[in-house]
């Protein structure tokens, strides 16, 4: 029997003979007759491989993707170019198939890759410790809240800016019910967190303050200044960041963040209809024993050679049980590996150049689109790779018209922010050329005009 094909009838007969059982049905003899189905499962007949291909291709064709539509939609996940080298390495069975490396002696490659990933994220965020990845951005935020509550010796309040991604705030609210924590949201002003409101919201019972920069609306927040409120009351400052902007923006670790985390998809992972992706989580040295997720460590083996292991496993659920720092069990290591490869391929200079390109092209797009009739900026605050516009026509209708012209125009802010009902969130990546941006400006203007005519 090979490792990858299932048992043949001869294999089964041999196994049954070895255990002294007549037939497979006899193995289920303990199940009472009334509970047995007694008929084949109501499944359609099997299809040939070619028929399956046709069927799935037809289903897939019902979706639009970024090859068909020019994508200006971001809102947390971005249409970056993923170089071929990422797949060339991640599709190798040594990386593609394994699970958690509990046996370090046969997992050195995977563990070293994790260690490299941790090193990269630690350098990008300017925080000394990183874990090997979590599921995605939103659950990383919730995990950080759990950490803060545990570390704060009795505090029960969490303060979060409405600039933090709606999915993160929703997940935080979900987890907080279980933690028995109270979450207070602070609103935005001029596209960024309302500093005065934040200062009023934070007190001696606050375990953590959550910010995001660039925030969900694309605006860059003054993390250091806002963090003062957290520091004053001894609350942890936790900042969600877009990793793709860390080549050009001041890293959270240099702005006073105790924890920096976020959605890792922009690095090395395609959109893939929303996942899988990975979350990253970096923090200060003092918090290392409370951090969630796996942590790869570098050490020496019995012969003095450098080796890698999962370390600080005493935080994890298979050892600490109900007192564990987290309950993560599946491996997002493959997605984190994709990110590591992408970063290595870009290199330090390349990563910074890519960041600069994003900023320049975003500035260009912002100016061109705001100049279109019926469009203005939602706010003036500086941005990095995403920005919000105000439209003079219903945003959903405008999106439909743009889609008919082959453009996914962006995210309708009204869906999550009733205070910005006429807002459209537009994202730029290095795949968006000047020609595409110019075309979009024309299409957007035309769509708004058409809507205004239709409404009058």
């Amino acid at each position, binding site marked *: 029997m090979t490792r990858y094909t299932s048992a043949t009838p001869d294999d089964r007969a041999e196994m049954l003979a070895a255990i002294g059982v007549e037939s497979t049905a006899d193995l289920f003899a303990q199940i009472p007759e009334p509970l047995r189905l007694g008929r084949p499962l109501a499944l359609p007949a099997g299809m040939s491989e070619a028929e399956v291909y046709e069927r799935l291709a037809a289903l897939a064709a019902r979706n639009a993707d970024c090859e068909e539509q020019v994508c200006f939609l971001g809102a947390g996940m971005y249409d970056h170019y993923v170089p071929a080298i990422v797949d060339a390495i991640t599709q190798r069975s040594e990386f593609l198939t394994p699970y958690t490396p509990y046996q370090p002696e046969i997992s050195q490659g995977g563990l070293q890759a994790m260690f490299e990933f941790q090193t990269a994220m630690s350098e990008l965020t300017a925080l000394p410790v990183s874990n090997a990845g979590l599921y995605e951005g939103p659950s990383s935020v919730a995990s950080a809240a759990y950490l803060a509550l545990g570390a704060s010796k009795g505090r029960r309040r969490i303060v979060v800016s409405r600039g933090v991604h709606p999915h993160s705030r929703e997940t935080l609210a979900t987890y907080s019910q279980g933690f028995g924590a109270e979450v207070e949201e602070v609103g935005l002003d001029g596209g960024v967190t309302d500093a005065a409101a934040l200062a009023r919201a934070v007190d001696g019972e606050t375990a953590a303050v959550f910010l995001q920069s660039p925030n969900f609306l694309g605006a860059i927040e003054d993390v250091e200044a806002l963090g003062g409120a957290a520091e004053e009351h001894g609350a942890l400052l936790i900042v969600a960041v877009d990793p793709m902007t860390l080549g050009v923006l001041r890293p959270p670790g240099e702005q006073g963040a105790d924890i920096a985390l976020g959605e890792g998809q922009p690095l090395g992972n395609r959109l893939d209809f929303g996942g899988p992706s990975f979350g990253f989580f970096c923090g200060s040295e003092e918090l290392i*024993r409370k951090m969630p997720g796996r942590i790869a460590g570098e050490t020496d083996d019995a012969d003095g050679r450098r080796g890698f292991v999962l370390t600080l496993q*005493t935080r994890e659920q298979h*050892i600490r049980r109900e*007192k564990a720092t987290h309950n993560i069990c599946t491996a997002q290591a493959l997605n984190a590996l994709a990110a590591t490869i992408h970063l290595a391929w870009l290199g330090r200079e390349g990563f910074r150049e890519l960041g600069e390109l994003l900023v320049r092209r975003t500035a260009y797009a912002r100016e061109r689109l705001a100049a279109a009739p019926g469009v203005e900026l939602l706010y003036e605050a500086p941005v990095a790779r995403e920005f919000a516009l105000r439209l003079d026509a219903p945003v959903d209708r405008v999106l439909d018209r743009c889609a008919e012209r082959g453009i996914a125009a962006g995210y309708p802010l009204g869906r999550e922010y009733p205070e910005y009902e006429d807002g459209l969130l537009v994202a730029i990546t290095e795949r968006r050329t000047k020609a595409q941006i110019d075309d979009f400006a024309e299409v957007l203007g035309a769509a708004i005009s058409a809507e205004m005519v239709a409404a009058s």
Partner: protein
Amino acid sequence: MADASYPDDLLYHDQHDWARLEGDEHAVFGVTWYAQDSLGEVVFYDPPEVGAAINKDSSYAEVESVKAVSDVIAPMSGEIVEVNDVLADAPEQINDDPYGEGWLVKVRLTAPGEAEALLGAEEYRKLVENG
């Protein structure tokens, strides 16, 4: 510490903690030889705050070894007056000298009568050797 040792001048709790009474109102607590031997190499001690109230039979701290994290149980009730800071940089003292340099906390007792419920060295030794 290589061989099992249970000094006669200490009192013992069946959750493998010891108490050394100092005068009528104070005591020093730690974990026994059996505890450190079971845990293996201790890598981290998470102490309580000075001033914290601790209760007999409840956990007041955690000791982490390479393979497990263990609650440390208070043999008697009281208020923490001192914590062994040496353990922050040298947690292995809990293994090497569990009754001396490896002491965990010093406590002002709130119910000295609780000492009655504790075991003597011989009783405790029998408890751990008989399983």
